């Protein structure tokens, strides 16, 4: 891959800044009713960016981003509520400053990822896939079981204070704006990473691990870093989530959450940071629509069963994964790019042939 | 076999760029050239492993371009692949039998197995013939193919290819990784096979000397194109060939 000239980088940077500013602005202009979904789209985008890098460059699938998300959320939640595990009492004196609690989330998830990732990333992709799946399941079990710490399922972790920065309460529109601001920052950071020297190493790894290793690149270390980065981003998003919901329960983080993130990246594009954001937006929207569709009593004359909402999401996501992986394996956005480039090349060749250059 | 203007590419990289060659029944032809010249790609395209981007391959006048390897085998062309590629965990005899099984395979395993079982008698005869031609294999028949030496594996690979009763045997890098003594023995065997059974041979080789000894004609492939062609005798004298592949023409005193 040729190194990008300076001005493309600048164009991307300003473009992303502008888009980010736009999204932040939109946050303030939306109706109250649309804000929740908008916020959730942003949160998903943060996770998706990290996962997209991992899947696109390290070629590894993490089915546990939902676990890091949950871990981040609970870390922030517990720290900011202040718990004395001995008597299960909410103890505001033990509470941390919300901003610090938020910062703790990505640090913790990153650390966990580092520990888990060291043995796993040296192996082929499916080991990590299952292990991260396992991680999510174990975490769920722990969240349900250790209800002295987490509040379990009932009543859950209640009373999370709102995020306050220097006296300003960050909620609703402001929270959405903050979330999207962080999305923009994550995208910029990711794009920077891809364009940097480390990014070139990552490209090499993505093309062929064997060649990259032969060229002296420490493949395992790069993969680990991407995994930790993805986990950190997911943890950060999780922390923000707890300030959005102000209440936590293990029911909020079912296994399908992890899978949904994978769907977002698969659709939007592995390795394509912008694609990941688009994927996050699209899938969050789809998810909402499916749920809405499923809670209706009837559809097209058929009586819908009680479980319809879940059926729709699970089934539709499954179908999407199959179709996308078969026909657009690099994700929809990149596939469109590749397709247009191929068409352009063929046109060019045809005009060359026509002008007798063959 | 006739090949016309064949083009093979992997994505944007062109491995074979418009190659034409031909081979008559019972001939021994070699394909030499440096590493990466596209010899293996050419062979793989001929044997149906890779679909060519352009050009055609004909066997007995019949266009077989892009057909499956199984179809090519049924038309009488089998390949002894580079690096032997025997099935390591299976005993030698199983390797050989698979050569016969594969020939009648067609679409799916159930009918293939039925056909195989019905022709058991014939296949057993073929097996005995191969053991006669390559007696060393009879000794090794129950040993896992992965536990045999390089030379023995090459014999297994050739035997496996012969189980399909080919009229043309395509061999990719006969001498790779083998001791000269072993290569010599194999070489003699192939000459005898060609003389007695009339099996044509298409040999892809880096070792040009071996190629000229074994084959009557040769093509020189460089960067995906035929650079030279002719009889082994002619090419053996050719200066360029000597310089590149035979270590320089000795100046006559």
């Amino acid at each position, binding site marked *: 891959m040729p190194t990008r000239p300076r001005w493309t980088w600048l164009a991307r940077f300003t473009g992303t800044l502008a888009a980010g500013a736009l999204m932040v602005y939109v946050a303030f202009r939306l109706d109250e009713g649309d804000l929740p979904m908008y916020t959730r789209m942003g949160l998903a985008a943060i996770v998706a960016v990290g996962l997209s890098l991992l899947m696109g460059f390290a*070629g590894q*699938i993490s089915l546990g981003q939902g676990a890091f998300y949950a871990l981040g959320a609970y870390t922030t939640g517990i720290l900011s509520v202040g718990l004395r595990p001995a008597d299960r009492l909410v103890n505001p004196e033990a509470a941390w400053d919300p901003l610090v609690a938020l910062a703790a989330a990505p640090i913790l998830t990153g650390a966990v990822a580092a520990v888990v990732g060291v*043995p*796993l990333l*040296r*192996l082929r*992709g*499916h080991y990590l*896939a*299952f*292990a991260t*799946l*396992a991680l999510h*399941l*174990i975490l769920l*079990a722990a969240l349900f*079981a*250790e209800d002295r710490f987490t509040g379990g399922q009932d009543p859950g972790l209640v009373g999370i204070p709102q995020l306050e920065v220097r006296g300003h309460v960050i909620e609703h529109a402001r929270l959405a704006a903050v979330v999207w601001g962080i999305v923009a920052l994550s995208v910029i950071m990711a794009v920077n990473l891809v364009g940097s020297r480390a990014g070139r190493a990552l490209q090499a790894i993505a093309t062929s691990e*064997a060649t990259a290793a032969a060229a002296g690149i420490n493949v395992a270390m790069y993969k680990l870093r991407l995994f930790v980065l993805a986990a950190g981003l997911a943890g950060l998003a999780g922390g923000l989530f707890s300030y959005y919901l102000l209440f936590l329960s293990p029911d909020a983080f079912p*296994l399908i959450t992890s*899978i949904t993130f*994978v769907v977002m990246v698969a659709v939007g594009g592995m390795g394509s940071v912008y694609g990941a954001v688009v994927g996050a937006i699209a899938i969050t929207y789809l998810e909402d629509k499916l749920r809405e569709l499923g809670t209706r009593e009837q559809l097209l004359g058929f009586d819908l069963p009680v*479980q319809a909402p*879940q*059926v*729709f999401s*699970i*089934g539709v*996501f*499954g*179908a*999407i*994964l*199959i179709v996308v*992986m*078969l026909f657009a*394996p690099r994700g929809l956005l990149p596939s469109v790019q590749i397709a247009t480039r191929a068409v352009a090349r063929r046109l060019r060749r045809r005009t060359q042939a026509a002008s007798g250059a063959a | 076999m006739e090949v016309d203007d064949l083009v093979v590419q992997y994505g944007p990289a062109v491995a074979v760029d418009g190659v034409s060659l031909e081979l008559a029944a019972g001939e021994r032809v070699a394909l030499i050239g440096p590493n990466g010249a596209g010899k293996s790609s050419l062979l793989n395209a001929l044997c149906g492993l890779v679909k060519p981007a352009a050009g055609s391959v004909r066997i007995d006048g019949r266009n077989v371009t892009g057909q*499956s*390897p*199984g179809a090519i085998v*049924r038309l009488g062309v*089998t*390949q002894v*692949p580079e690096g032997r*590629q025997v*099935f*390591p*965990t*299976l005993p030698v005899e199983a390797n050989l*039998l*698979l050569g016969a099984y*594969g*020939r009648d*395979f*067609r679409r*799916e*395993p159930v009918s293939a*197995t039925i056909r195989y079982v019905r022709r058991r008698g014939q296949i057993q005869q073929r097996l005995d013939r191969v053991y006669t031609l390559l007696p060393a294999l009879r000794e090794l028949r129950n040993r896992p193919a992965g536990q045999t030496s390089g030379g023995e594996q090459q014999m297994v690979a050739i035997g*496996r290819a012969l189980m*399909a009763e080919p009229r043309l045997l395509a061999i990719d890098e006969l001498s790779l990784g083998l001791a000269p003594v072993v290569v010599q023995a194999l070489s003699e065997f192939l000459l005898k096979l060609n003389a007695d059974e009339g099996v044509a041979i298409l040999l892809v080789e880096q070792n040009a000397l071996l190629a000229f000894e074994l084959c009557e004609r040769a093509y020189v492939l460089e960067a995906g194109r035929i650079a030279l062609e002719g009889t082994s005798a002619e090419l053996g004298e050719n200066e360029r060939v000597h310089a590149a592949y035979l270590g320089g023409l000795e100046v006559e005193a």
Partner: protein
Amino acid sequence: MTLPQLVLAVAEADVRTLLQTLVVGLSTGSAFALVGISFVLIFRTTGIINFAQGAFAVMGGLFTVGLVDDLPTWLAATIAVVVVGLIGAVFGFIAMGFRGRTTSLASLIITLGIALLVSSLELLAFGDRPHNYPGISESSWTVWDVVINPQYALVAGVTILAALLLTLLLRKTIVGNALVACADQVRAAELVGINVRSVTMIAFAVSAALSALGWVLLTPVTSVNYDSDVAIAVNGFAAAAFGGLVSIRLAYLGGLLLGIAEQLVVVYGDRVTDQARQYELAAALIVILLLIGWRSRHEVEPA
């Protein structure tokens, strides 16, 4: 829960409970072993890890549930296993994707998608309650003061037979040999004329049938639900990982060990924490992680 604590807890228990736990563990382990073998079979032949393996198992159980009202149990079970085998072949075809275009990682995601799709259809057809059906016998055996449900014996026995039969088929029949050939050297197998795609479909069919068999036999003592497939898949993968994803024998052993370990955690774990049942799965998973960590120090897998 630390190892010394576990050992202590085990030592304190009476032998009866221990034996009982072992029996249950062996039979759940047998079912896991079958799933693990299925993983190995598909992985060796195609390099694909089939996420939907758990879904095959669950399909077996649920189909039997659906048929058992109208047919004798053994017939329902047999039909279910065969049908799942056929469905497995179809899914395998889909998962293999387009030759050259579909990477093995993409195939993994496709199998994940298949598992999700199957899960949702099962939910639609069977609802979200766990299902069950009667097993081989209502009464239990009493051996050495230990009460054993004969179903457990059935599972373990059939499983061993199935595994042996599979190994035999692979080694002695020509089709089995062809399968192994495709697993070891796919290019050479193609060159010889074997249609690798169709052979891999057989691998998928056999795998699906095996997983279904294990679970069909186990359901009477466990129950089956539309979302059981994740736990089954993870356990099966752990068993397969024990064999490095390539050894059938080790996968079988791994499955048994896993089953026993899980049961030990469930039965004795509540000395340590009263939520032990929740950690049943955690036991499996810690085992995988440990195994993998240990393995990666001794091997470097090719990319």
